[in-house]
């Protein structure tokens, strides 16, 4: 049975499962990033979030990020799971696990993964506040596409 390293799910994510996926006798370091739903953003109180994905393409883009990481940090192992649907405060939206023989690569590759997720993976977040709702886009978080497109094209 092949374990999926890159997944979009609509159920709670267990970070320890992703740690298991990247474990290896060669690994000396495993980093995880757990993105959780924060209650307050720039003075606005979030009640809950809703994530939507273009699922097949999102999985494909997560794999692309995995390939990019393999190229930049050889011998790392990467697993990423993103949750969609309705998420409450403190719920986990995304988990990234990276294993590597040495810690530097495990940190760098992990941070690279979350940056890239925010650039090229077709997932959208709708914030529901006490008095309204809005779809968020990168431009609102000041991460513009410098040349009008994500820097990935095959």
């Amino acid at each position: 049975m092949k374990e999926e390293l890159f997944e979009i799910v609509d159920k709670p994510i267990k970070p320890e499962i992703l740690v298991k996926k990247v474990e290896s006798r060669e690994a000396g370091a495993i980093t995880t990033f757990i993105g959780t739903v924060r209650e307050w953003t720039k003075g606005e109180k979030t009640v809950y979030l809703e994530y939507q994905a273009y699922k097949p393409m999102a999985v494909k883009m997560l794999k692309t990020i995995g390939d990019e990481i393999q190229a930049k940090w050889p011998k790392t192992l990467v697993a990423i799971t993103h949750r969609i649907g309705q998420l409450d405060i403190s719920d986990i939206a995304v988990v990234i696990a990276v294993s590597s023989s040495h810690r530097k690569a495990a940190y760098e590759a992990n941070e690279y993964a979350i940056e890239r997720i925010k650039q090229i993976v077709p997932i959208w977040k709708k914030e529901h506040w006490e008095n309204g709702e809005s779809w968020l886009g990168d431009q609102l978080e000041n991460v513009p596409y410098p040349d009008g497109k994500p820097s990935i094209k095959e």
Partner: protein
Amino acid sequence: MFTVLLFAHLQEEAGQNRLEINSEEITVSEFKRMLQDKYKLTQLDQVMVAINEEFALNDDTIKNGDTVALIPPVSGG
């Protein structure tokens, strides 16, 4: 004839998550103009287009049977 998938605010604006478009082969930029004129979708300058699950450039051509997705700025993570 090709399929267009809509997400996030575009889906809400259009009131549907999928359009079937009867058209000859057109480029991505011609397609965007069509969306603006015919479907009154806004903020399209911020929107990327994917053809068959790959990001496309303005000069790329949309062919018969393709699945085209409009990708507003993403906000995962």
